[in-house]
C-alpha cells in the first residue's frame, strides 16, 4: 500500500500542520479517503457515536479513544479511580493497603472529590468534619480554568443542594454537573509561588496497556505570590495555574511564559531537598499516572484505530506528595512563547513517530511496538505486555528510562532496588 499519508484536521494549529507537511503527507477533507485524522474532542464524539458512527478501515488512525472521557472528564475519572480501588481491595491486592486512618497507602492520589449535586449530602458530611477547609468547584465539562471557583462556606454552593427548593438547577443535565474537591492549600512553593506540573502521556493501547511519558514536561507558575489567606480566594491569579488565566495577569512574561522545565524542578529539588526524596517524588508521579490509566483501562474502548496524547495536571504539596488534578484529552497546542512552540512541535513530531511509524500509511493491525530509536523524547512509562512476560511481580517495576525485564539498565535515579522505591 504505497502512497502518501492523507491527513485531515479540524484543529488549525501550526505545530500540527507543520509536522504533517514535513512528512510529505497530503491534506484532504473529511469526506475523502483519509488515513490520519487529528480530531477535536467534539469530532471524535460524532465519529464514534451510535447514530452517525462509521466504521474505520484498517488504514485509518485517529488521535482519540472513543470514550476517552472516562479519564478526561473530572467526575468520571474520580468515579473510575474509586471503582478501581474498591476492586483491588476486594481481591485483597497489596496495592489497596490502607493505613490506620483508613487512607489508601498507595492509591491516595486524588484529592477527596464529590459530584454535585448527586453527592451533595456526602459532601456536606465531609465538609463539616473540617469546616475551615477550602474546596474547589470545577465544572465537569469545561477546560482552561473556565468556571472554576473556590469556596469555604456551605452557603456558597447552596444552589447545588439536591433538596433546595429554590434550585432551578436540573441535576440530570450533565452539562451543568460540577465536581467539588478538597483544595490543596499547602502546595509546594518555589520562590514563594505556586505551580503545577503539565506532563504529556501517550497511550497507544489500553489492553495491553502501553504508555509513554514525554520527558519534556513543564511547571506552570502563578504570577502572583501564593497566599492561603481567605481574602484572596477570589483572586484566580493566585490559585489557578492555567496559562489561559495567567496570560491575562499583569505580570505575565512572554519570554518564559511563567514556565519551568521539569529538569529545572528536579535540579532545584535535589539541590534543596536531597536526592532520595526527589527520586521518590518522581517515582510517585509515574506511579500515579500508570495507576490512573489502569483504573480506566477496563472501561476504555480499546479501538485499534486509536491512540491518544493526554495532558496530565499534577500538583505537588509541601510534603512532596503528588496529587492528580485532572487529565486533558486535548492538551493545548497553542504556543505562548518561542520555547513553547518548539516543545509542542517536538511533542507532535515524537507522537506521530510512535503512532504512525515511519510516516507511512498506517495499518492498525500492527503490534504497536515502535523501536526504541523512534521514541524521541518519549520514554516507556509502562508496558503491560513486557511486564506480564516477567511475572506479576514486575507489574510494580515500571520505571521510566529503563527497558523492562531482567536486563534493566542503568536508571538515573538512586541505585536502590526498584521495589523499595515503589513501596
Amino acid at each position, binding site marked *: 500500500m504505497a502512497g502518501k499519508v492523507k491527513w485531515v484536521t479540524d484543529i488549525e494549529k501550526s505545530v500540527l500542520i507543520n509536522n504533517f507537511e514535513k512528512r510529505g503527507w497530503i491534506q484532504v477533507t473529511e469526506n475523502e479517503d483519509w488515513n490520519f485524522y487529528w480530531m477535536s474532542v467534539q469530532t471524535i464524539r460524532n465519529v464514534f457515536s451510535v447514530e452517525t458512527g462509521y466504521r474505520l478501515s484498517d488504514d485509518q488512525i485517529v488521535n482519540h479513544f472513543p470514550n476517552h472521557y472516562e479519564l478526561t472528564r473530572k467526575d468520571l475519572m474520580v468515579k473510575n479511580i474509586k471503582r478501581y480501588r474498591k476492586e483491588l481491595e476486594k481481591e485483597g491486592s497489596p496495592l489497596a493497603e490502607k493505613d490506620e486512618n483508613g487512607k489508601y497507602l498507595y492509591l491516595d492520589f486524588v484529592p477527596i472529590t464529590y459530584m454535585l449535586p448527586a453527592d451533595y449530602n456526602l459532601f456536606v458530611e465531609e465538609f463539616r468534619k473540617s469546616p475551615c477547609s477550602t474546596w474547589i468547584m470545577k465544572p465537569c465539562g469545561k477546560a482552561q480554568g473556565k468556571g472554576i471557583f473556590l469556596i469555604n462556606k456551605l452557603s456558597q454552593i447552596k444552589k447545588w443542594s439536591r433538596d433546595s427548593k429554590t434550585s432551578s438547577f436540573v441535576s440530570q443535565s450533565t452539562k451543568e454537573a460540577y465536581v467539588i474537591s478538597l483544595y490543596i492549600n499547602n502546595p509546594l512553593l*518555589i520562590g514563594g509561588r505556586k505551580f503545577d506540573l503539565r506532563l504529556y502521556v501517550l497511550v497507544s493501547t489500553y489492553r495491553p496497556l502501553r504508555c509513554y511519558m514525554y520527558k519534556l514536561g513543564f511547571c506552570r507558575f502563578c504570577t*502572583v505570590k501564593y497566599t492561603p489567606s481567605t481574602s484572596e480566594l477570589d483572586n484566580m491569579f493566585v490559585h489557578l495555574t492555567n496559562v489561559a488565566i495567567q496570560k491575562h495577569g499583569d505580570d505575565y*512574561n512572554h519570554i*518564559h511564559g511563567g514556565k519551568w522545565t521539569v529538569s529545572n524542578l528536579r*535540579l532545584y529539588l535535589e*539541590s*534543596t531537598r536531597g536526592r532520595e526524596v526527589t527520586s521518590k517524588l518522581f517515582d510517585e508521579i509515574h506511579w500515579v499516572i500508570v495507576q490512573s490509566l489502569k483504573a480506566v483501562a477496563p472501561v476504555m474502548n480499546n479501538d485499534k484505530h486509536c491512540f491518544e496524547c493526554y495532558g496530565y495536571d499534577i500538583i505537588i504539596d509541601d510534603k512532596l506528595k503528588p496529587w492528580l488534578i485532572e487529565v486533558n484529552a486535548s492538551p493545548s497546542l497553542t504556543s505562548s512563547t518561542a*520555547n513553547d512552540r518548539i516543545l509542542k512541535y517536538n511533542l507532535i513530531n515524537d507522537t506521530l513517530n510512535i503512532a504512525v511509524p515511519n510516516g507511512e500509511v498506517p495499518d492498525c493491525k500492527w503490534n504497536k511496538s515502535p523501536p526504541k530509536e523512534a521514541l524521541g523524547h518519549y520514554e516507556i512509562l509502562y508496558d503491560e505486555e513486557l511486564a506480564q512476560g516477567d511475572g506479576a511481580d514486575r507489574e510494580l517495576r515500571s520505571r521510566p528510562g529503563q527497558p523492562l525485564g531482567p536486563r534493566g539498565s*542503568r536508571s538515573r535515579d538512586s541505585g536502590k532496588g526498584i521495589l523499595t522505591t515503589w513501596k
Partner: protein
Amino acid sequence: WAANHKTSLQRPEIKLESLKEDIKEFFKLSGWEKKLQNAVYSELSVFPLPSHPVAPLEHLKEPLVYMRKAQASWEKRILKSLNSMCTELSIPLARKRPVGEQKELLNKWNEMGTDEPDLSHFRPVYAPKDFLEVLINLRNPNYENGDSLSFRTHLGLIQVPLKVKDIPELKEFFIELGLNTGQLGIDDSTQVPPELFENEHVRIGQQVLAKQDTAAAQQYIRQGSPTALRADLWTLILNISCQPEDILYYEQLKTNVIQHDLLVDSLIYKDVKLTASNDDYYFVFEDYLYQVLLCFSRDTSVLGHFTYNSASPPKSYIRGKLGLEDYAVFYPPNGVIPFHGFSMYVAPLCFLYHEPFKLYQMFREMYVRFFFRLHSISSHPSGIVSLCLLFETLLQTYLPQLFYHLREIGAQPLRISFKWMVRAFSGYLATDQLLLLWDRILGYNSLEILAVLAAAVFAFRAVNLMEVTSLAAAEAVLADLSTLKVMPLLQIFLFATVT
C-alpha cells in the same frame, strides 16, 4: 566562646600542670579544632600573602601604580554618571521613607517583584561593554615593546604585559580535570554505570561533609559536586555558618532597607527586571533577588573587602559639605555600585538556598571572594584583566587561524566573550552546567577557569566561526550556549588538544 567554655574548664579533671594538653584535647573533642582549622584555611584563601612590612596599604589592594590609577579614574567616571543621573532626575542618593511607605514595603517584602514603579528614566550606571573599552585602553607606561611586529605581538584587545598561564601550566594547575580522573559533568552521564565513579564520589562527598573539613571539601569539589551535596559543600568551603547573630544581622539590614530608600535600589530593581525576570531559569526567584541585593547594598561589613580589592568605595558628601572628610559617607553603604547584569551573580544561588538569610550570606561571601574581581581593574591572576589576557593568549596561541580570521573580519573574540566572563557565565549556560563550573571556581579558588572555558567554547564552535564574515554573524554563532556541556569542553581543550 571563652565564656561558654569557662565552666567546662573548671572541672576537677583539669589540672594546671596539664592545662595546655587538656585544652588541646578539648578542642579536638568538641569539634572546635576543626572549626578553627576551617576558619584559618578560609582566611588564607581570601587574603593576599604577607607582604613587606614597609609596603603601604594600597599595595595590598593593587601593587601596580598604573592599574591603581586606571581603577581610580574609572571609579570617578562611574560616580559622576551616578551623580548626574541623580541631578537629572532630581532624586536624592538616599532618603528616609515616610512611615506609611515603610509599612507598605514591609507588607510587600516577599513580593517586591509585583511592584511596578516607573523605571524608564533610570539607566544602568554602566554595562560590561563600557568597562571593556576602559580595559582596552589600559597601558603600562613603563613598558616599551621596542621590537617590531613579530609572531610574539599580541593581536588581541588587551595590551598590558601581565603574566598568564599557558596550557602546560594550566594542565598542572587543573590537574584534577584530567582525562584519567573521574568528573561530575562527564562520568555521571546516563551511559556510564554509576559504580565506576559516581557512587564512590558521592560516598566520599558525604564523608567530607561529616568531617566538616574545609580544605578537604575544596579538594573534593574539584571533581564536581553531587547535586544533593552541593549546598552544604559550598557552605563548608566558604566557611559560612548560620549563627543567630547572622540572622539578626540580616534582619537589621532588612530594617535599613525599610527605613531608607537609596537611588541604587532603583538600579537594582531595573537590573532584575531586565535580566533575571526574563531568564528561563531564574524568573521564579525574582523576589529573592530583591531581598538579597537591597540588603547587600546597605551592608557595611562588605567594606572590609576593599583592603584587598583594587577598587575603593565611592565617597559622597553630606549636602553642602563637599570635600569635608568629616561629612564623607560611602555610597552606597557597601561601596559597590551595581551594573547591568549584577543580579545574575545571585540568581544561580537561588537553586541551592531557599532561606533568604542563608542565600544572602552565601552571595556576600561569593562576592567578596570572587565576583568583585570581575569588575575591578587589577593585576591579580583572577582579575578580569588577567582573564581577558589569558583568554586572548590561549586563542592566539592554540587557535591562531581562528583568531586571525575573526580579527580580520572585525570580530575580536574578546568582544564576544567578555560578557560571559564578567558574569561568570551566569545566564549563558544552563544552570546545572553553571553550577558544575562554579564548583571548580570554589575548588581551585581561582577564576581562571572562566577564561579557559571561554576559549574552549570558541574552539568548539571553530568550524562555524571560520565561515562567518562579520561580527554580527560571529555573535550569532555564539549567541546560544545553553546546550553546552562545560566539563567535556574544558577537558578536551586542556587535555585532548594537540598543542
